């Protein structure tokens, strides 16, 4: 199978991820580990959009809807069942179902492009408006009160075989990092399967894919649902990192931010948006520690410089640069070889002449 050769870069990155997962808690302070969990959750959201948009060509402006739905579903399920494992499963399933309904509605209605962006954004904003209203006692699912704008406290992860044992922040970090690595390897594998290639072909040319006999609506729906599952899982990790879920996750700022991560990291790559999310997470956190200059101002300037200087996004730019360097090296080696050959042959000639 060529899959292992194809995925060499993926596995390299996964190994780096595992090393980070093991080493980080011994190097970093506790608060950094706790906050990293939040960053990992956001990276998961970025990964899901990298798949859906970067590979599936679906400009989903409301990917946070699935992230938030996942977070809420986890919280509600965990409060009711007391078992985090079940709750995670429920969260992912709910996100998938939600995406299937919304996706069916859009793709089978042939909505695409910026029109689809607006529908998804609008769905997210509707959730934002509606959940904000749920502060009253009547908004109760089982034992869980939704809590309106203030949100709900998310029960921490516990062990499936010992529900009374709640995980420490370091352990939550391990779980989050493991999920991220698995999701990354899974998506990298997925885009190399036949399914993945068809999805990419749909992004390249919908009509052609359709004329080949592929039901593009179905493929889009499926990739959308897979993306939602990953985003939902990200939501689960997010409410574990923050300890709470609030309707904020659905607002315009966060919807736009998700798109920004993907652009910054580079569309058409999976690791790019993940790094984009981490990068912007650390940037906003670092900026928050100062208040001399307005933070919007600094962030705005950085993003503008970024888009002008690194237009293709982080990872594609680095990749191109590396390829170019490699090419140049090969070129140099070749030239040197030719040169040596030439000198050698001329010496040989000379020697021959001498003989």
């Amino acid at each position, binding site marked *: 199978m060529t899959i292992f050769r194809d995925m060499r870069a993926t596995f390299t990155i996964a190994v780096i991820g595992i090393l980070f997962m093991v080493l980080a808690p011994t190097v970093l302070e506790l608060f950094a580990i706790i906050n990293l969990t939040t960053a990992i959750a956001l990276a998961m959201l970025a990964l899901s959009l990298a798949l859906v948009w970067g590979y599936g060509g679906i400009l989903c402006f409301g990917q946070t809807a699935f992230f938030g739905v996942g977070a809420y579903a986890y919280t509600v399920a965990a409060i009711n069942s007391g078992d985090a494992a079940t709750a995670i499963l429920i969260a992912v399933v709910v996100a998938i179902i939600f995406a299937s309904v919304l996706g069916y509605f859009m793709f089978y209605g042939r909505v695409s492009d910026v029109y689809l962006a607006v529908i998804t954004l609008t769905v997210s904003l509707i959730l934002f408006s509606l959940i904000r209203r749920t502060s009253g006692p009547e908004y109760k699912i089982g034992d869980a009160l939704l809590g309106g704008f203030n949100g709900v406290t998310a029960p921490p992860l516990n062990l499936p075989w010992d529900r009374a044992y709640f995980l420490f922040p370091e352990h939550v970090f391990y779980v989050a990092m493991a999920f991220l690595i698995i999701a990354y390897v899974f998506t990298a594998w997925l885009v190399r399967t*036949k399914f993945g*290639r*068809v999805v*990419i*072909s749909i*992004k*390249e*040319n919908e*009509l*052609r*894919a*359709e*004329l*080949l*006999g*592929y*039901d*593009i609506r179905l493929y889009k729906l499926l990739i959308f649902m897979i993306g939602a599952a990953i985003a939902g899982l990200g939501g689960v990790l997010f409410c574990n990192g923050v300890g709470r879920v609030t309707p904020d996750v659905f607002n315009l700022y966060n919807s736009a931010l998700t798109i920004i991560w993907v652009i910054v990291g580079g569309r058409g790559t999976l690791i790019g948006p993940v790094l984009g999310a981490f990068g912007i997470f650390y940037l906003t956190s670092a900026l928050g520690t100062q208040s001399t200059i307005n933070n919007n101002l600094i962030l705005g300037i950085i993003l503008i410089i970024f888009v002008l200087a690194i237009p293709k996004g982080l990872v594609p730019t680095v990749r191109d640069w590396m390829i170019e360097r490699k090419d140049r090296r090969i070129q140099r080696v070749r030239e040197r070889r030719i040169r040596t050959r030439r000198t050698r042959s001329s010496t040989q000639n000379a020697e021959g002449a001498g003989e």
Partner: protein
Amino acid sequence: MNKGEIVLETRNLSMHFGGVRAVDSVNFTIWENELRCLIGPNGAGKSTFFKCLTGQIRPTSGDIVIRNLQVAGHQSHEISSLGVGIKTQVPNVFDGLSTEENIWLSARRWHNTAHANRLTTQTLDRLDLGGIREKTVGRLAHGERQWVELGMVVVTEPWLVLLDEPTAGMTYEETLRTADLIKTMNETATLIVVEHDMQFIRMISKTVTLFHEGKILMEDTLENISSNPVAREIYLGQRSNKLEQ
């Protein structure tokens, strides 16, 4: 002449855009192993007709029957899935992918990976695309992109092929090769070709259907049509000399 089985038939097929009747009650029939060219001046409705056949647009009324199956209003992929190969007017290829990947994606629709790989290699050889195998299709010349798309049709081994202006933008050399390819395909498949280029039609055609104002004006050999005064009238102006070529 024994025409064999009917492969595709339309009955009273109409397509209206607002008040415009782009296709107006067209009754069209094609028999097995036939190669039929659709011609007509710009706006005659042949491209709209083609889009109805391929499911790109849903006709206003009427029937399209492919092998006894009513397909009017079906999605493109459903029609394609019957084993119909389709090539559109503008080259519709996956610009970001390589030639090989383009053809593989087409083959893989019908066959498992191993078989698809084999078919891809065969088709690349058959169409002489080996030289641009790894190249990104978006960077190829127009004619080459047309050939890649033809390759995507050929590799599926269709029994009915619908081609919309397959030689647009091709050099004379390429047009000749395309004519050969189409003839070869015709050995195992029925073909409908929408074309402007009279020279090309002359190379391949047996029967020609002339469209005019959304209707079929006549259906005959090219010689008979070219000598028909009404047909000449329709092609008046720039088109008239084309007919005479």
